[in-house]
């Protein structure tokens, strides 16, 4: 029995970096859940992916200037991420290219630029750290950063919940009542960028988007309303974080992929056994109702 408890708790009670990583991931889970849900509902899942690559050259520039420094990489990531989001939106509005295509074009450019910048100064180990994260990097300032971003995210979402939801399902109506649809859209993209930046110290730029998308995609199978699905997504993200960190500790795996892989297992489980629209629920449904 004691061994059992030891197995699940001792990594966190004995090692401060494990505690830091866990708290960071739990905070991340709270912020990412509603943002990820909206990405799924707006059919912008791949846009999140594109933005996560857009954060890379910013982080890389920060790395070029001051090595593996949290502040430089964070600020660089936020600036370049927002710039790409704005630029993609502008290209879509001014030219005939659709927003998803302009996002794809810009993220490929960003990814290439980011990898090149890092390889100019760093080693391939540095590159792996930036792309896939390292839990050893989660120190006190990183923790405060992640917690702040989670707080900002939740408060902002609560504040602009109404126009955000309307912009999501009926943008024409929001336009017709003068509801600042474009502003809401940009605030939302800014939240996506912030959460991706929050994720990359622990998970890496490539894996950060997994914390946004996988729990949200899985939560869709468990709850129907936006808020309840967001809650489900947060819970799934927390379970994945905890189990992923344990996995990475005992098996000596990199932390980012471990956490995201567990989230992926949660997703597959939900696809098969979820309450709404899963394989199992469709199979079980049987005959139709009388009225």
């Amino acid at each position, binding site marked *: 029995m004691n061994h059992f408890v030891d197995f699940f708790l001792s990594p966190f009670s004995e090692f401060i970096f494990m505690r830091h990583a866990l708290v960071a991931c739990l905070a991340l889970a709270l912020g990412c859940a509603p943002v990820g849900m909206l990405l799924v*509902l707006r059919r912008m899942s791949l846009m999140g992916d594109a933005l996560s690559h857009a954060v890379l050259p910013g982080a890389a520039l920060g790395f070029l200037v001051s090595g593996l420094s949290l502040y430089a990489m964070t600020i660089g990531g936020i600036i370049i991420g927002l710039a790409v989001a704005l630029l993609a939106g502008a290209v879509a509005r001014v030219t005939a290219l659709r927003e998803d295509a302009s996002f794809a074009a810009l993220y490929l450019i960003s990814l290439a630029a980011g990898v090149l910048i890092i390889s100019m100064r760093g080693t391939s180990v540095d590159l792996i750290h930036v792309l896939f994260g390292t839990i050893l990097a989660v120190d006190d300032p990183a923790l405060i950063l992640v917690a702040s971003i989670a707080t900002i995210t939740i408060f902002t979402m609560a*504040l*602009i919940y*109404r*126009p955000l*939801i*309307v912009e*999501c*399902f*009926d*943008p*024409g*109506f929001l*336009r*017709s*009542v*003068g*509801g600042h649809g474009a502003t809401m859209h940009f605030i939302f993209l800014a939240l996506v960028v912030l959460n991706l930046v929050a994720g990359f110290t622990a998970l890496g730029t490539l894996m950060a988007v997994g914390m946004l998308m996988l729990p949200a995609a899985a939560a869709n199978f468990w709850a*129907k*309303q*936006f808020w309840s*699905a967001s809650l489900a997504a947060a819970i799934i993200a927390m379970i994945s974080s905890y189990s992923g960190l344990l996995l990475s500790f005992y098996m000596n795996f990199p932390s980012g992929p471990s956490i995201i892989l567990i989230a992926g297992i949660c997703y597959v489980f939900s696809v098969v056994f979820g309450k709404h629209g899963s394989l199992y629920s469709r199979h079980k449904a049987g005959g139709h109702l009388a009225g």
Partner: protein
Amino acid sequence: MGRRRLGISLACRRLGARLVIIGIKMHAITLNNLTLGYERHPAVHHLSGVFEPGSMTAVIGPNGSGKSTLLKGITGILRPLGGSIDRGGLKTSQIAYLPQMLEIDRSFPITVLDIVILGLWRDIGIFGGMKRDLWQRVEQALTTVGLEGFEARAISNLSGGQFQRVMFARMLLRDSPVVVLDEPFTSIDAQTTLDLFAVIQRWHIENRTIIAVLHDFDQVRAYFPQTLLLARDLVGWGATDQVLTEANLLLSRRMSEAWDESAAVCEENAA
């Protein structure tokens, strides 16, 4: 004409007078030599005229004759290529507009009640809450369109006709002096059409300006005093029985077929 028409118009005038007192202002929508279009090709060409306050106008014409384009111009979605629109001081956000192609995501997890309440945007805005009198108005709107008991229904579970009723309930709550409808009854069953026409009639009696694109000429003759017949250029605009003639319809069909890919820059009214 005759006594019935007279009776209705008297009732209208009386109600209209009352509504002016309680605050519905009168706005004429004036088109001055208006040209609207896409990629410099005109879809509405040098159109001038006035939608009088409280008028009820059907916009008709063949496919591609610029009907929807005209509505997009009136509601401010499309900027004029030439000429101008004077909305009599009305903001575009005060015009209730039901587009033909809804951008609404029908699979979105939201209930009928939540959508209908959005019609109160002017009262509640981004942050405001619902008050008791607002709840009453929502209830009334739902009853008017025949959706009592549907409040908690998810919109993904509604039929096309039921969904159109939701859209009308939302427009009812917007309480706009001008209502613009783009083919509101295409692929809608007879009973729903009848019920929703009653709502439109009510708006008319309340002296709101109504502009609607329709395809069914019987509906136009039965309900709409005014008709605007469009074929890119104006064919006729006036009393329905004078505009909706065989000769005009034939003319409009012939005119709308002439779409020229390599058209030169229009010289008419050029400075």
